[in-house]
């Protein structure tokens, strides 16, 4: 913003203001600006409208939905109908509600599986990424780059390939419909992303730091934990948040491998979507409750998410 101000000042301070090039330049600059802002605002509208629409729909009643009212208080009066059916409206929050219990159970399941698997993935992934960025490994014919490729190539593996064998294996191991089973698979699915981000992060830290620490008598692990980890923390946070979002939203494995105990929130949303009788306002309330944590994370931690995703772009 300050830069924009500066360039404006430069332009005003120009001596040859009256040359033909300058006169045509001003309107052109202005239309360019207009175009850029128009594009940005249009796209922001496209991004935000579904969220807004869902939020308002959760406060609507049948006639409001049918008339297509859009703005609360102006063309319809908000009612707690949708949230009441979830047991989350002000007058039902104290009372018992089976739907709310169900919702909270799913919510806890989602929270536990996504947080645990993200923590696990960040731990395993950081260790591996650190090792790969610092030491030279040799395993049979595989060197460092082959091992890295082995990890990253997991990204290509579509979940559907693992899903059915896993289903059978889990049945055998009594891991079907448990949180542990989901956590293991989720950890696996975000591990390549974590390794990618963290390898980038570690290779940006100069090796002299550990060398100094080793001279001071620390072991490799000591140097890693006391010196390197604190520096790499931002990258770890970025990897963690990204994993959290991905695992929170995961639907495919959860739909296949869970049924009644370890069901996550997306499975609940999807099963409600399929049923015919469900009303728009309750569905909207449910959807909105499911995406609310992510909206909060997105608004508050946007910086880390972008950092994490950008890590892969520039090598």
């Amino acid at each position, binding site marked *: 913003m300050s830069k924009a101000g500066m360039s404006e000042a430069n332009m005003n301070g120009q001596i040859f203001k009256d040359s033909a090039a300058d006169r045509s330049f001003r309107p052109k600059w202005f239309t360019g600006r207009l175009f850029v802002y128009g594009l*940005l605002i249009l796209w922001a509208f496209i991004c935000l409208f579904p969220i807004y629409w*869902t939020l308002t729909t959760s406060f609507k009643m049948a006639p409001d939905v049918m008339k297509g009212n859009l703005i609360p208080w102006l063309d319809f009066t908000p009612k707690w109908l949708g949230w009441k059916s979830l047991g989350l409206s002000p007058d039902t929050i104290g009372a018992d509600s089976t739907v709310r219990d169900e919702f909270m159970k799913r919510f806890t399941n989602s929270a536990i599986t996504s947080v645990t698997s993200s923590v696990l993935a960040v731990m395993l992934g950081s260790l591996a990424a650190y090792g790969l960025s610092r030491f030279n490994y040799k395993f049979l014919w595989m060197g460092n780059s082959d*091992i890295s490729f082995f990890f990253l190539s997991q990204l*290509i593996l579509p979940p559907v390939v693992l899903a059915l*064998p896993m289903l059978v294996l889990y049945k055998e191991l009594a891991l079907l419909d448990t949180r542990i089973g989901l956590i293991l698979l989720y950890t*696996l699915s975000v591990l390549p992303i974590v390794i990618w981000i963290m390898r980038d992060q570690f290779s940006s830290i100069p090796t002299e730091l550990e060398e100094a620490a080793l001279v001071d008598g620390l072991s490799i692990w000591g140097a890693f934990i006391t010196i390197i980890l604190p520096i790499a923390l931002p990258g770890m946070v970025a990897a963690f948040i990204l994993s959290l979002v991905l695992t929170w939203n995961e639907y495919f494995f959860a739909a296949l491998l869970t049924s009644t105990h370890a069901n996550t929130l*997306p499975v609940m949303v999807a099963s409600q979507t399929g049923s015919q009788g469900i009303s728009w306002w309750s569905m909207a309330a449910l959807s909105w409750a499911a995406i609310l944590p992510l909206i909060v994370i*997105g608004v508050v931690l946007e910086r880390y998410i972008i950092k994490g995703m950008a890590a892969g772009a520039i090598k």
Partner: protein
Amino acid sequence: MALVALVQLLQVQGLHDFGLTSWRPTLYAYIFWAICLSWGQVLLHGEHGKRTLFVLPAALFVISLTVFPLLFGLVIAFSDWNLSSPDGRHFNGLTNVRQMWADPFYWNALLNMVWYVLAILVEYAIAFGLALALNAEIRARKFFRVAFLLPLMLSPVAVSWMIGKSMLEARFGPVARLARFLGWETPSFFGTPGVAKATIMLMDAWTFIPFMMIMILAGLQAIPKELNEAAKVDGANGWRAFWEVTFPMMLPVSITAILIRIIFKLKLADIVIAVTSGGPGGATDTVTSFIFREYRDRSNVGYGTLLAMFYLVLIIIVMTILMKLADRFARPRT
């Protein structure tokens, strides 16, 4: 130390012995073997072994969760195994392969994937435009960044209700209203095959454009400002400066973004399962959603696994070719 090696050997042996009948002992054996291996590394190689410990846990974890199931998958891919019937698994050779060959819906799903992947080019163009706009000197950049990022954060299943089932709903959805206002009298977004496919593409694009946009934005910000200024001084206008300076500079980042996007696209399933479940007539089916229904409706594990395995082989071939091509494209310019 010799003991550790012996134990390792025994466990590996044991693994072969009762491999396919029961998995529980194998799991325990594997965990035990993994611990022994890690400990053995430290004992045998000392300081060098400690280095191995960085990579070993992740490697063992990945091997246990991908290589094992993949091998197991190969076995069940050639068997007839209906989970709901009591007679269990039995080997049936190439019957599954023949069935796959003659399965029009599977090939249809594969063909759909080609269309879905081609849609990435449009996504890329939009993402590039948005990244350029975000990279310009604008106010409220933080607001726009957050707004543009949000679609990526939302769970695809919730999005498929929010957009697919409510906003695109033919009677009351706001988009349908807009379409009527614009002159399409009977808007139905999932009625005809072509429209349904385009709608799914658009919904998927809505979710994933932010992803490409951020990667491209990161690339744009890494381009030194002087380059563009130099081009301006040389007399190039904005359009030419873009095609001759910015775009070539962005090629490596673009290729990375597109490749990763293709990888994600090949996994597309959630919104298809939740919105159309493949319909109408398989027009929106992806391979993943097709196999998902194959399992859910017929619980045929063997056939489903074969389809998935074949898909994996195709993906590996296609990705290898693409990466080779990308290498050749990106190299001369960087």
